């Protein structure tokens, strides 16, 4: 099992909190939308979960996928 992060572009309003909480996992693109730049692993899972919970626009989701 691995965890996959998704940003809903329509909901993302560019607040960039995810890039503060998990700079290795998110970056702002030049349209001001967050994009996923890293893989979730044991070391950053807590940060990933926090980024999901903290997004003011509720735009980030994490799903498990079979590996």
């Amino acid at each position, binding site marked *: 099992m691995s965890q996959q992060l998704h940003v809903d572009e329509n909901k993302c309003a560019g607040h*960039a909190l995810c890039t503060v909480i998990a700079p290795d996992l998110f970056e702002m693109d030049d349209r001001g939308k967050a994009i996923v730049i890293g893989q979730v692993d044991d070391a950053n899972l807590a940060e990933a979960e926090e980024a999901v919970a903290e997004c003011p626009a509720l735009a980030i989701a994490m799903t498990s996928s079979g590996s």
Partner: protein
Amino acid sequence: MPGAGHRHDLVGLVSGRDGVLVVGASLAGLRTVHELRTCGFDGAIRLLGGEQTLPYDRPPLSKGYLAGTVGTEAVQLTSEEELRSLDVEFVRGVHARSIDLDARRVSCDDGTDLAFDRLVAATGGHAVTPQWVRDLPGPGVLRTVEDADGLRGLVRPGTRVVIVGGGFVGSEVAATLCSAGVRVTLLVDGDVVLGRLGPRVAGVFTDLLRRRGVEVRSHATVIDATPDESGVHLVLADGTTLEGDLALAAVGSAPTTAWLGELAGPHAAPMTVDRHGRAHERVWGAGDVTGTGHWAEAVRQARVAARSIVGREDRTTHRLLDEVPYAWTDQFEVKVQTLGRPAATDTFHPLPGHDVGSLCFSGVYSRAGQVTGAVMADRPQDLARMRRHLAAPTRVSAVLDDAVASGESA
């Protein structure tokens, strides 16, 4: 375990033991409900909303929704399905009229009384509606989706619209309508639009509006307006007159507190809350009703209030309590993001190498050498770093040195 039986405890003579009544079903109200459930609150929740619609989002009303580039789905904050899964009873189209703190009861305009154990006031704000706009055709102000629909239905390319007020909403509506071929005159009471950003930053956005065809008139105040066969006839304080097909007052919003009685100050003063959003042993407030006026702040306050209600004090609670105020506005294609609460009189420093005139820049504001805020125009990539700088008291020289050290330039 509280079950469905708690529901009706909220109504009638018996007070619910753990029922939360949220008044105002928009951003702050809905996010309060969301956070209560996320934090494991399993008591009854009732959400009372004055509007007939499902909760919707306001920022698009002056941007894409007004332009017609996004539809109703883009403003929807939730769905019937999500409301069911949040196990919230949503009462729509009913307004709270008054509150009785001793009896723990809210009286509504449909004649019902709703009891509560704890209450969250999230009734937001309403557009300030000057007397002169009341008799004019069209919505006159922009706050609700009906206002936006009304305005959109009345403008065509070539329609002459006079917008009064150059704050966030007035300038955005001017940009949106002008891009659609509407002939816009924007009256501002000071020198520039977006005056809160200080003369230097405000100046470039005033110039942008002018370059795109908006006629911006400084130091212009409307004292009277009358509808006539050809549209509207406005009289300004300096005695000049102005004709248009339509006029819109974008002169700010006022917190909707009339129903709160002693919990709000006199003369439409905002509700007073402590840093946890608490106003009274059993009452909290979140969002524009507390006088804040920005989207991200409404979300933050809603989450803080919900956490205070359930007594959750963890790392997230502390981060929310310390969060740097954030807001944004779209000026044509330029997204302008602000952090902190700079005053218009603070000194503005573009980051080294950033050119304000290029409309792609970041900069910080300072007072007595201390950073008070930041602005990013079309520079979302700087937001995270600026948030970190503003998280603690910082000297402006430290921010500017850091920008040089990290080799940042626009």
